[in-house]
């Protein structure tokens, strides 16, 4: 799994590329893998304001919808025009051609809450471990015997 160095990452699995006061936003490789084949992307309009931690769009696969949460606040200056007709670009190139919106940052301090590549890589590893643990816990519950089930 890739974690490009020059990007910042949010807990909701978005990445941010900061260039001066402008930020490009997309979803990470981990996110697109979890979602599966993406069939539709709902993006904000140019000019709209997005607010940090609030949903600003959605990504749909065949069987699920996921909100995308704003990692930073700002005004939308551009959206990726190939996505309406080719949403699968997010699956193919989540950090490059699959970018979603470009915003003009309203508060540079928002970036402080984001993770860098190493921190995010750890975060993802932890997420995967947690998923495995949950499954292990379920196994343990099953092993416990329920007295009522014993044959009379």
């Amino acid at each position, binding site marked *: 799994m890739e974690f490009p160095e020059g990007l910042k990452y949010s807990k909701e699995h978005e990445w941010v590329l900061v260039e001066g006061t402008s930020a490009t936003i997309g979803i990470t490789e981990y996110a697109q893998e979890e979602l599966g084949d993406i069939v539709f992307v709902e993006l904000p309009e140019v000019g709209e304001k997005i607010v940090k931690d609030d949903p600003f769009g959605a990504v749909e696969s065949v069987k*699920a*919808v996921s909100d995308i949460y704003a990692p930073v606040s700002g005004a939308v200056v551009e959206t990726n025009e190939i996505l309406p007709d080719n949403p699968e670009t997010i699956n193919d190139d989540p950090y490059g051609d699959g970018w979603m919106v470009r915003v003009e940052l309203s508060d540079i301090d928002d970036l402080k809450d984001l993770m860098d590549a190493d921190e995010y890589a750890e975060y993802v590893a932890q997420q995967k471990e947690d998923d495995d643990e949950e499954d292990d816990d379920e196994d343990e519950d099953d092993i416990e015997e329920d007295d*009522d089930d014993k044959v*009379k």
Partner: protein
Amino acid sequence: MRYTPHTVTDKERMLREIGCASVEDLYRHVPQSLREHAAIGLPAGLTELEVRRRMAALAARNDSAADWSFFLGGGIYHHFIPSAVDATISRAEFSTSYTPYQPEVSQGTLQALFEYQTLICQLTGMDVSNAAVYDGASAVAEAVLMSRRIQPAKKRRVLMSRALHPQYRAVVATYLKNLDDVRLEEVPFDAGRGATDFEQLKRLLDDQTMCVLLGYPNFFGVIEEPAPIRAACDSVGAHLVTVTSEPLSLALLKPPGEFGADIAVGEGQSLGVPMSLGGPAFGFFACQNKFVRNIPGRLVGETVDSEGQRGFVLTLATREQHIRREKATSNICTSQTLCALAATVYMALLGKSGLRRIAEINVARAHDACARLIAQRGFASRFSAPFFNEFVMQSENLSQLFADCTARRMVPGIPLAPWYPELKDSFLMCVTEMNEREEIDQLVRTSAG
């Protein structure tokens, strides 16, 4: 009759496998206090023969179109249904299958629904149709909800023609009662023409108008003039929703898509579904392409399988309740698929020329009956606007007419008083291809007093 195949031996074997002494053991999690009072106080079951006899006796207590002359429309129509329709929907592969969630083994239902969607688009002239909703009334309600999802928040006035089917209007009101932001207002009809009062409509339209609901034809059978209404809606950015409870009329009339309706809905019963006391039938729902992600109900889409063969699947499911849950476009799950299939078979059998032909016969018989009746003393045509197969007849002595007709096993129409007090001297009469010339003769004779 029970339909459970388990013998005593079967039960014993299965209980041994499970590790229980009795079936009651399987219920031990259910509190005793509940189990004590759970006996069902209904008589013992009947054999199939007993059921047949009982139901035949119940059926005999009804007056049906089999031995009565009905001139009844008002949203449900007596039309000829070719034998092949019932033969098809009686096939258990269609009737006992489930919603096609496993498309590889549901290509029959899915392809038929794709064909249904196409036929509705062709009939209504619209871009896209869903796979049917419950009935015409709830289709109108769903159309209003859809308009609300699309239109900006300041547009929340719904203008509903009073000439729209009274039950449909009632259902819309029920659905909207729970949404605080929508205002429902009625547009009167022109007392002379029987169509929506255009001047009044224009006066009511403003930039807060979300949509206009127009019967096409309306409840009185009148064919509304759609073009000026479309233009008026355009001037304020309101959606135009047409409502057609007699879709056979669309074989002849300009389809809603051609005059730019945003949403076209209606009742599909006319198209090959038995009257069956008003249900089950189905509501059709069609709209312009740009609204497709907001449409309620199931959608069937074309795709390919892993070997490139064409196939069909339920699609755009993320709109629906099982995925979107509280943000779904509708709560609809089970709808009316088998009835939509009946309509598909019906339209396939009649085809381009057949549907037109039956519609023409409806027009001919209805206009002939109307002309002959108004030639009788004491009868007058109530409205001047053109009609398809239904019209409003004014009668000097309504109750006498109905009594005389009952004595001859006829029902001349639907008295309008319950919904339109100002029309208490009038009734809504429908004539279809199922009303033979002799029936109309008899009605005319009876009306002569």
